[in-house]
Every structure is written in C-alpha cells, then in structure tokens.
C-alpha cells in the first residue's frame, strides 16, 4: 500500500508543478466553455438549454487532453520499466495512476463548473446538478481513457490514436451524464435512473480499466 500511495503522491506532485497536466486541462475546459456563447450568440434560452451538454463536452475533451501523457511520460523517462518490474501488481499501479490523474485533472474540472455555469446562464441548482453528474462521471472517463493511453504508449504520436480509441468508449458516459443533468434541470424524466447508470459506468470502469491497461502495457513492452 505504501508503494501505491507513493505513486499517487508523486503523480499528483508532478501534475501540480509548473508544466504539469492539471492546469492545462482546466484552462482548456475554460477556453471551450467561454468560446461557446460567442459562437452561439446571445440567446440566453438556447445557452441554458445547451449548457449541460457544453460543460460535459468540455470536460470530456479536457480529460482526453491530459490522459495522453498518463503512461507516455513514464515510458519516455524509463519509470514505466521500474513500475512493471516492481512488486506492486501492475493492475493496482495502473489504478493508482488513474486515481492520481482524476484527482489532479478531473476534480479541478468539477470545481470550475459552478463558475463556468454562470457564463452559460445556468442557475445555481442546474450548475449543482451538472457538477454532481461530472463528479459521478469523470472517473469513468479517466478509467476508460486509461485503456487507450496504455495502448498508445509505445506509439509515437499516439495522442491522435488515443482520441480515436477513447471517444467511442466515452459516448455512453456523455449520453447519461447529459441526460441526468437535463433531467435535474428541466424534468420531466427522473434524475435517478441516468445518474445511477452513470455511477455504474464509473464503477465498471474502475474494475475493467486497470486490468485492461495493465494487460496492454505488459503486451506492448519492448
């Protein structure tokens, strides 16, 4: 356990230092959401209706942007070899890296959501609903994205491949995330069902993601 805690602490430190991934994700999220009102025009009702979808798309793309380096950075500097060789099971090491990534890159997105909700004419309750669905759904984005990051680790310019691999897997998360948000804001459908499925996707990702990523890392070693 100390090994995994050490791995999480190191990844968090690296992400929060200058040049780390945490700030880049939030800035990208901010940029996407800020640009939307300019593109759509000053139609407050339209903004309000599209708000949850815009926030979710922004969060999806921002998390994809930072996932790219999840394993590549460790592969490039040789850390990945030592992590694979270590006594800590590779599956748990992958899970630890995903947790660190979510804490560093996912949580800031959720924290930024209330501020960005203002720009999209969302009231307090609606913003809270979107933040809640992001809290439940972004772990699923990280865990599914991790599989793509592990597949792309040995490839040069794997970033584009990552997007192609991961975006289809993220579609269910996007659908149920936006559905739950809209249900909370406008009704008439219940909030519970899509939100439960969103939580289920995150839990399934928690189980499948690390195992799949570890298998892919082992296979891809050279």
């Amino acid at each position, binding site marked *: 356990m*100390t*090994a995994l*805690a*050490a*791995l999480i*602490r*190191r990844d968090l*430190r*690296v992400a929060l*230092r*200058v*040049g*780390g991934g945490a700030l880049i994700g939030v800035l990208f999220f901010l940029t996407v959401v800020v640009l939307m009102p300019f593109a759509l025009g000053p139609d407050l009702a339209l903004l309000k209706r599209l708000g949850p979808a815009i926030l979710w798309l922004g969060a999806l793309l921002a998390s994809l942007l930072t996932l790219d380096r999840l394993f590549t950075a460790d592969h*490039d*500097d*040789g*850390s990945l*070899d*030592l*992590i*694979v*060789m*270590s*006594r*800590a099971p590779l599956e748990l090491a992958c899970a630890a890296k995903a947790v660190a990534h979510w804490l560093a890159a996912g949580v800031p997105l959720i924290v930024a959501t209330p501020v960005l909700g203002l720009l999209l004419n969302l009231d307090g309750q609606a913003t809270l609903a979107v933040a809640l669905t992001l809290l439940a759904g972004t772990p699923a984005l990280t865990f599914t994205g991790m599989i793509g990051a592990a597949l792309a680790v040995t490839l040069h310019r794997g970033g584009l491949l990552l997007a192609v691999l991961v975006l289809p897997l993220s579609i269910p998360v996007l659908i149920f995330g936006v559905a739950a948000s809209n249900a909370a804001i406008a009704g008439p459908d219940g909030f519970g069902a899509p939100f439960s499925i969103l939580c289920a996707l995150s839990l399934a990702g928690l189980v499948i993601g690390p195992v799949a990523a570890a298998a892919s890392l082992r296979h891809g*070693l*050279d």
Partner: protein
Amino acid sequence: MQPAAITESRNVMESAAFRLVGRALTCIRGGREIFADLGFSLSAGEALAVTGRNGAGKTSLLRLIGGLLKPAAGTIVLEGSPDESPPAEQAHYLGHRDALKPALSVAENLRFWHAFLGGERDSPPAALAAVGLDHIAHLPAGYLSAGQKRRLSMARLVAVRRPLWLLDEPTSALDTAGQALFATLMTDHLAKGGLIVAATHAPLGIATRELRIGGAA
C-alpha cells in the same frame, strides 16, 4: 577481463547456493533473432560483464532477466532464493533512461523510488550522501547534468536493497571520480553476496566474468 576473485564472507541471508541461471535463451525481436541458445550462470558475489558489438543483444538480455521482455525459448531463474518471487522483483534495473521526473527535486525523486520499491533500512539521505548529491538535494532533477542524473539513479540502488543489479552501460556519462565511486558501490554490493549483470563496453573497475554475445566485438 580476469575471472571473479571475490570470495569474502557472505551474508547469512544469501548463501553461496544463491545463483542466477539462464538456460538456452533465445530472444526474438521484431521477427529477427537477436541471439539463440544463450546460457550463463552467476553465483552470489560475482559480476558478469555482458559484451558484444552494437545490436548484439546486451540490453535485450538485461530486459529478459528483468522480465521486461519474454524469451522466445529458455528460462531464467534465481536458485536458492529465500522467496519465490521472479528475478524481476529481486532486481534493480539501471537502464539508458534514468527514471527521474524533472519537475521533482533530487530528494523527492529518490524518496519516491525508495517508498515505491519498498526500501527498508538505508534512508534516502544516506544514499544521496553516498553518491555525493546531498548538497543539491533540493534542486529540481531537471537541472542536473547527465552524470548527476546517473548518480541519482545509483542512489536508488543503494537506498533499496535488491540482490540482483541489472546495469545497462552504467558508467556512461560518469566522470572519473564517479566511475571510481560506482566501482566502490558495486564492490560493496558483491561483498554482501549480491549479483551484478552489466552490459558494458568500458571496464567497470571491478573483477568480472565476461559473457560475449554474438561473436567478436
């Protein structure tokens, strides 16, 4: 190179029966056979220098022992090991790349590997002092020279105890004093009953046996 001449008393933990043995190893990478039917045996307290021309498979052999590559045929075992774990988990791997995060300080980098690899007694500060980096412990690793990064990697070997050291060109980028220091560290390790497999072109400054891969260098 002369045969191994180190016969100091061994630790109780690692008896003379502690051996690293590779049998009939074949390595195929990218559809090309790198080497075939390679065998070696290394007892506690011995160092093996793996030599050969560029591309002969020196690094591949180290990665096979470290479990980072799968042999197409053959086996590698640590005989007489106190626990059943595979050689990879009892080995340190010092590769071409130094496994350091430029954004973290020298001390943070070492403390991470110490905690992650499960170091027991030697505290990281002592290891940093042993490789002569204690005066720049607070400096981000990104500012280190290539030789200093190598020294920081060496500190990892000292901070966490593993019986088997896999070294890939360990003395590259080291200055004369650094090479002498590393020779001392390796001698200490062998005296405690450790094993060293090093891929190298340059003399390591310690007594080694030689394993030549792929004909004349």
